[in-house]
């Protein structure tokens, strides 16, 4: 693996992709990602699109919880705000998608700021409860302010069009989402090389100590909330157009739990972890469904019951990963990498 590489300048040290090995595989990945939609069926594309959206959302949550240590049970609310804002901006004000999506993200970030302020002094359980109360309130407002949100009937989201091209098929959405995933991942990876990013990590590790060494807790906590909500807002806006219709049941507390699961199972505090977790948690239910299809010929009674098995696998996966590898899938990845790095020497 990587050996025999040495750096001769500071510039080399600061590069994100340090070895030629990594750069090479990234190029291969890029090529594969490009070919992907032309090779696979619509159903797989749709799942991939959901993965992509989940990655963006999980990254956002990881920034807030994994890197800054702020427990948030309100993630679904920010997804909702992003989704509804960008949809309503397009529906009611005719704002084109390429403006309404980022605007939706900004509105979500604004709410992130609003919720961050009372949460500055809270930690642990109380912070969790406060964010949960926020999520609950947002859901209530969506359902009851029907003149704006159409309540439980939900909204039909118009197909986004950029420069005349209308995005209708899952293939088109794939590329749209891919762009945003690349942007989000790059931004997140870079974030933790900046002063703000390191401040986040300091807050997570021991916020009182961080304050003592001069980190402005207020500023950075709010910033963390805002960044996280922006990500969620973008994910929500993309979710809205991919599904072509949104309603309050798309943004329940269950969705927040799914995102927390993604972050935890993938690995808190790691960008790659969020990606792995998002993909794993989106694909797992589909995988079990395929398993059920295979088994249902022999065991037809499973057709209606196996779906419960799906959620039991889900719960079991969370429990097992957390017990046996608290650093999540990322931890597993690192362990494997380290193993192969030293192979065949096991010491």
């Amino acid at each position, binding site marked *: 693996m990587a050996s*025999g590489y040495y750096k001769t300048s500071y510039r080399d040290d600061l590069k994100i992709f340090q070895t030629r*090995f990594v750069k*090479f*595989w990234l190029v*291969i990945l890029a*090529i*594969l990602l490009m*070919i992907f939609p032309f*090779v*696979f*069926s*619509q*159903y797989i594309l*749709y*799942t991939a699109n*959901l993965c992509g959206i989940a990655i963006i959302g999980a990254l956002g949550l990881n920034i807030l919880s994994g890197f800054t240590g702020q427990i948030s049970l309100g993630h679904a609310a920010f997804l909702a705000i992003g989704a509804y804002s960008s949809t309503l901006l397009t529906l009611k004000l005719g704002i084109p998608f390429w403006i309404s999506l980022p605007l939706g993200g900004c509105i979500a970030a604004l709410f992130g700021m609003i919720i961050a302020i009372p949460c500055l002094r809270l930690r642990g359980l109380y912070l969790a409860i406060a964010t949960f109360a926020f999520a609950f309130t947002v859901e209530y407002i969506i*359902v009851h302010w029907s003149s704006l949100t159409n*309540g*439980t*009937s*939900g909204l*039909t989201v118009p197909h986004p069009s950029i420069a005349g091209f209308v995005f*209708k098929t*899952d293939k088109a959405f794939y590329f749209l989402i891919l762009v945003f995933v690349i942007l989000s991942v790059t931004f997140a990876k870079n974030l933790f090389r900046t002063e703000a990013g390191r401040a986040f990590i300091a807050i997570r590790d021991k916020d009182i100590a961080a304050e003592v060494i001069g980190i402005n807790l207020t500023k950075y906590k709010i910033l963390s909330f805002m960044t996280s909500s922006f990500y969620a807002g973008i994910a929500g806006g993309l979710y809205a157009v991919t*599904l*072509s*219709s949104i*309603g309050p*049941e*798309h943004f329940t507390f269950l969705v927040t739990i799914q995102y927390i699961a993604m972050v935890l199972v993938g690995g808190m505090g790691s960008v790659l972890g969020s990606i792995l977790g998002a993909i794993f948690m989106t694909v797992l239910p589909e995988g079990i*469904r395929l398993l059920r299809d295979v088994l249902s010929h022999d065991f037809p009674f499973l*057709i*209606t019951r196996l*779906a*419960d098995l*799906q*959620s039991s696998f889900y719960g079991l996966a969370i429990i097992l990963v957390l017990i046996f590898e608290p650093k999540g899938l990322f931890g597993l990845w690192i362990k494997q990498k380290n193993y192969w790095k030293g192979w065949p020497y096991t010491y």
Partner: protein
Amino acid sequence: MRKKMNRRTFLKYSAAASATAAISGFPTILRSQGEIGVTSDSIKIGVISDLTGPTAIAGIGMADAIRGYFNDLNEKGGIHGRKVVVIVEDSKYSPTLTVAAAKKLISKDEVFALVSPWGTEPTEALLPLVAEQKIPIAPACSLATSIYEPMKKYVFAVGTDYVDQSLFIVEYIMKDLKAQKPKIALFCQDDDWGRDHLKGLNLAAKKYNLDPVVMESYKYDAVEFKSQVINLMKVKPDFVILAAGLRSGVLFLKEAQKLKWNPTFIGTNTLGFLKTLEMAGDAGEGLLVLNIFAMPDEDIPGVKRMIEVTKKNFGDKWMPANEKIHPYYIYGWINAIVFAEGAKRAGKNLTREGLINALETLRNFDPEGLMGPITYTSASHGSPGYVRMTKSDVANKRFIPLTGWKSVSR
């Protein structure tokens, strides 16, 4: 150093090349001839239902009814020699999961049509997809007006919608019970289902010059409904309409009984099954319930056949039929009947367009006596509704029909 890099690089490139080749070797085979989902000896249909979510009790029934119906039909030779293959997906009553399930059924399983997708909101979420993919929902499993009004080419609705049900209830109160300026209250769920009922009741109230209806609603996952009972009791209504699920409706009745409050309770089709009486006990005394489907203990051939087929396919799961078979089971069965009729009329050369044209030829089609007659035209894919009123017979645990099947006029 240079030499090692060369060999390494070569290995890298070849590994990468083979990996890319391997992955690209999963092409999707596009179907080439005939209609999607139809082969010379089979028709594939997709059924999306709530199997493990909040309304699973009803959803499982609907799915089982459809599977049982087609198992039986296949034994008798199928439709024009083709066997109907039913693929069931779980939607947990969620619109997102319904859309995902539909996409899977459409692109992976390549089904001919979607039959009876469960739930109003999930079905509404499917509408754009269905229009784009030109795949019929034949028919839908939702009693909301929005499913067929405005008309959608690919969507057919079955059953009397909620607004019509409410209109009939008020008509019954005024005409059959000859009430004088009655006060009406409504207990319903806090969503479109409830709102549709409120709309219908208020339309009727205006028509008969009654006071507007007082409504108390509940969230479907609420623990208890005590304050709603007290609130409606305050208003002293003569009639309380219960547009509620089994649990909420029965708990309402029990709480009212506890508070010694005795208006006339009228339940909508969701309370129209015998389990209601079993769980309500003597709080069910005097309960009137609206029927849109036949009851499982009725002595008509259609019902008897349904129960026989159910027993054969599912053993004791739905027995005793009186207690376990609920209106949504029957709804599924009727939907299967309608699809089969449409496919039959479309003829041997079965296409999606053909199915739609065939369904539009249904005039006063009788679904084996399980429901009022069904009529579709090229202008309307929603059939005019037929309802009847029944009364509870707590001692014998059954409902006694009070009226014949009546048609509702808007």
